[in-house]
């Protein structure tokens, strides 16, 4: 019985329920958000230490032994992702105290945020493929509602694209689950992994692998199915944008890592090329899309797409080092990308717009904000000693070791283009003088949207930004111990037998005997 595996899912559900009970009390909802997410961070660190000591931690829900019940399982990858989820949850709940107006809070911003975190945590921890679908849907429904919070025209238009493409991805995912169940007769991922190796029609396994790739590719916003992301992420309130940017696409990436290392490693001969070129095109299209934009959050949205390419490239190269680099990129990106969105919210509060052309002069006005932006933006571009450098360094090195020179070259060139976009934002927002025609709304810089004085609320918004910027620097400076953890992840993912043994426990021999018996039966009918 290891409660720490189930608690990261249960706790956000509990906090969500509590804040629903206090539907009319803004104060209680705010308190629950911060306290609940703080507790979530503590529990996620507990889970991380357990996993660090034992390697794998599992819990069989309802006491039904695997593969019949639903197993929650945490390996190092899940544990790291849970810690990051909790961190982003806490940071955002503090930020939204100041940034989310009462008109959004009144319509359930906090309960939805808890529900979203529960969905994300569930997806990271579950060991059952259908349960993964359910958590995806929990996450999606919460994100649908958050996306249209406020109900502006742009939000509706963005939401239609977001909802349609994500539902399409869900249906492809569900179809693949149905066909997979028809083939192997089990939903437990460890059990599926054992049975797929013995499967009769390996061609069908390849078809399934590609169906999962398309479904998770849409959710991760990989080329060529990323259009929903830049069409919708710049429309909701900024705290929601930041939450989506930090976590949602990464759940798709996590699922790709999990499914392709655990279940479909025998199809890699066929799928590796698809993944590599998908990753390369994702990087290139994302960064080129960003180059054409002059809206703060749209540039950042296109860069989410571009960065997803690096993560998938880490998976596609399929060596322990490359996977370690891919996960490092996920970790770095969650911290940095969330922070850039949070900074865009502060600049919007200060200058009343997201249009780069109308902004300016913030370096003089807010030097510390400029420093935080500098750290995050140049980390995204991969400048040493910040976190992005090590993510990129490990992936590039793995690419050269795997002799994939073309795609490695593309990855480096895309880094340069990222630098171009970040320098563009730096020049327009911080460096150049404020354009004369921008009448900075004077009341806005003194009083916030909700009528309170801006000084304490600006402080509340700046604190998370400072913490995340410092984290980006610290990840870069202390890359060595983190790289040790990433290497453990790479080894665990490349040797799925450990995961299978941890989930199935003593049943693993029984299942293997059963598979052999049924294979023998088919041979001599």
């Amino acid at each position, binding site marked *: 019985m290891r409660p720490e595996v189930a608690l990261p899912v249960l706790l956000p559900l509990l906090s969500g329920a509590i804040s629903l009970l206090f539907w009319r009390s803004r104060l209680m909802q705010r308190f629950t958000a911060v306290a609940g997410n703080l507790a979530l961070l503590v529990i996620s660190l507990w889970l991380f230490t357990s996993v660090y000591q034992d390697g794998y931690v599992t819990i069989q829900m309802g006491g039904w032994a695997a593969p019949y019940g639903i197993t929650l399982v945490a390996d190092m990858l899940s544990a790291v992702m849970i810690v990051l989820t909790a961190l982003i949850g806490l940071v955002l709940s503090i930020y939204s105290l100041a940034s989310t107006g009462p008109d959004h809070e009144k319509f359930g911003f906090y309960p939805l945020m808890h529900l979203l975190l529960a969905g994300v945590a569930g997806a990271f921890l579950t060991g059952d493929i259908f349960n993964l679908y359910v958590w995806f849907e929990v996450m999606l429904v919460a994100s649908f509602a958050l996306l249209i919070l406020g109900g502006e025209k742009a939000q509706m238009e963005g939401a239609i694209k977001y909802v349609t493409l994500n539902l399409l991805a869900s249906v492809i995912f569900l179809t693949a689950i149905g066909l997979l169940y*028809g083939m192997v007769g089990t939903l437990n991922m460890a059990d599926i992994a054992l049975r797929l190796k013995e499967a009769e029609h390996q061609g069908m396994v390849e078809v399934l692998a590609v169906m999962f790739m398309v479904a998770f590719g849409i959710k991760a916003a990989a080329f060529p199915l990323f259009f929903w992301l830049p069409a919708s992420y710049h429309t909701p309130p900024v705290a929601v944008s930041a939450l989506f940017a930090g976590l949602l696409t990464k759940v798709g990436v996590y699922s790709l890592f999990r499914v392709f290392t655990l279940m479909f490693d025998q199809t890699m001969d066929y799928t590796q090329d698809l993944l590599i070129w998908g990753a390369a095109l994702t990087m290139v299209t994302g960064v080129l899309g960003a180059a054409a934009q002059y809206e703060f959050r749209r540039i950042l949205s296109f860069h989410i797409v571009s960065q997803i390419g690096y993560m998938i490239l880490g998976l596609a190269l399929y060596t322990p080092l490359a996977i370690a680099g891919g996960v490092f990129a996920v970790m770095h990106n969650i911290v940095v990308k969330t922070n850039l969105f949070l900074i865009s919210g502060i600049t919007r509060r200060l200058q009343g717009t997201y249009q780069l052309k109308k902004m300016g002069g913030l370096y003089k006005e807010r030097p510390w904000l400029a420093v935080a932006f500098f750290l995050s933006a140049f980390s995204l571009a991969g400048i040493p000693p910040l976190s992005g450098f090590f993510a990129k360094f490990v992936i590039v090195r793995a690419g050269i070791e795997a002799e994939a020179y073309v795609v490695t070259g593309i990855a480096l060139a895309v880094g340069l283009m990222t630098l171009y976009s970040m320098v563009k934002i730096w020049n327009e927002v911080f460096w150049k003088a404020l354009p004369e025609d921008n009448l900075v709304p004077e009341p806005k810089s003194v009083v916030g949207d909700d009528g309170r004085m801006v000084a304490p609320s600006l402080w509340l918004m700046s604190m998370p930004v400072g913490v995340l910027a410092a984290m980006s620097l610290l990840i870069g400076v202390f890359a060595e111990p983190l790289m040790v953890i990433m290497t453990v992840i790479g080894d665990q993912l490349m040797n799925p037998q450990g995961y299978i043994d941890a989930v199935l426990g003593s049943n693993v021999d029984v299942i293997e005997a059963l598979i052999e018996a049924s294979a023998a039966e088919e041979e001599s009918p």
Partner: protein
Amino acid sequence: MEPVMAIAIGLLYSAAIFLMLRRSIVKLVIGLMLLTNAANLLIFTSAGMTRGAPPLIPEGMLAPEGVVADPLPQAVVLTAIVIAFGVLAFAVVLIRRAYEIVKADDLDKMKDTDT
């Protein structure tokens, strides 16, 4: 029975995709509805169809007698139906609100956020 189901499912998928490629948002949502139903039927069929044999274990025995229906895909389909119902309810409300705000039932008029 399976070939008939397979053809029906294929028709549902193709009808759904055809509707989703139209410009009208109402047809888009109808397409989504058909698509989720097609996926549910596919799970139901691909897991094998056994008629009139509920998976009940007679008293005093440890395993059911003979071939019984697999209860797991039925549970899975039930869950999927409920989820699809909730999500589609949201989608219907969304297109209604979008229609009120944009005042058009045309996806081509909803591309402000793309440029």
